[in-house]
């Protein structure tokens, strides 16, 4: 099966990676937002605890949480309430954007494979991904394969998740994937430089 594969290139790189994700942007945004939220919560909690335990000079721990000067400021200053309204409106907008980010994936749409005076030829990336997935699923030792094209239309990347049944050594499947499935995808896209990430999954074997 791997007879046509030449000796693998020796390339330096990491020995381990974090699992691939379909929503890199959402992962990053969630991490930053939750981290900032954690920081704000921790800072507010620590400050309130410090005041409550009498560790802040100039503030009496027996003062009410909402004391006279704060109430007076809110009542007498014309800018406090509009500023609060604007801040909460911005918070609502950010939360809306945060929610919409969860639904976005890095899947690419149509890819232009040819263009001339007569017109253009676009390839629906879903169709190519399905074809690659079907091809890989037909390999011996593979029970399931899910492919998708990620990145951008200018620099797409093939992402494959392949579930094995243990009857064929994973490295043989790897060789065939490179020699056939990835090669066919490159041919279809007309991109010799198409990059791919393949995740092999081996379930519990009995």
């Amino acid at each position: 099966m791997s007879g046509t594969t030449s000796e693998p290139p020796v390339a330096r790189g990491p020995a381990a990676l974090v699992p691939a994700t379909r929503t890199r942007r959402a992962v990053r945004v969630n991490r930053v937002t939750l981290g900032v939220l954690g920081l704000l919560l921790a800072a507010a909690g620590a400050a309130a605890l410090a005041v409550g335990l009498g560790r802040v000079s100039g503030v009496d721990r027996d003062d009410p949480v909402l004391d006279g000067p704060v109430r007076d400021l809110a009542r007498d200053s014309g800018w406090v309430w509009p500023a609060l309204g604007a801040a909460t409106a911005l918070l609502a907008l950010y939360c809306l954007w945060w929610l919409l980010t969860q639904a976005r994936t890095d899947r690419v749409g149509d890819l232009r494979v040819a263009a001339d005076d007569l017109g253009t030829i676009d390839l629906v990336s879903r169709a190519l991904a399905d074809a690659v997935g079907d091809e890989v699923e037909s390999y011996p030792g593979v029970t399931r394969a899910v492919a998708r094209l990620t990145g951008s239309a200018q620099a797409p990347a093939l992402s494959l998740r392949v579930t094995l049944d243990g009857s064929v050594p994973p490295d043989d499947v790897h060789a065939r994937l490179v020699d056939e499935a990835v090669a066919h995808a490159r041919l279809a896209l007309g991109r010799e430089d198409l990059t791919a990430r393949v995740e092999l999954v081996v379930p519990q074997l009995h």
Partner: protein
Amino acid sequence: MRTVDRLLAVVLGLAGLAGGLLVTAEVVAGLLDRPPLLLPVRSATAELTARSWSDTLVLVVAGAALAVGVLLLVAELTPRRRTELVLQPRDARVTCTVSTGSVGHLLEHAASGVPGVRAASARVRRRRARLDVSVPIRDRGEAGRMNERAAAAATGALTGLRLRSAPRLQVRRTEQGA
């Protein structure tokens, strides 16, 4: 963690959206001299005016906020575990990985195939793999040979994967009665 983050994002995003809109609407209503819409503004103001910073409830809420905040911060700052082991490349532009869990399943399968081995369980990390094989109680020499065969099978499976950097395999034997 990504799943937990995603769940938190949806819950907190919805809460923040609803809360932000509600408070904005309350502020607008207040600026127009209208009564509060939904939020109990007056009772909340009275409650915060009545309670001091040293009040037990205030301290508990502050402590809980600090604890949750630190927990969130630590969780988000901790680097994600690299659980996908990279195979030696066959093409410079193709990265092929196999998860530590999958490697564990392969090791278990290889060791279980050795005659006499009753069960095998593996725990694989980036640099270390531990395989526990259970064999029936026999004389010391026979149990040792069985252990060696299981170790050889697991080592073969690990080598056959052609990982860029294979974890160090450690095999442990447990002898069980018939």
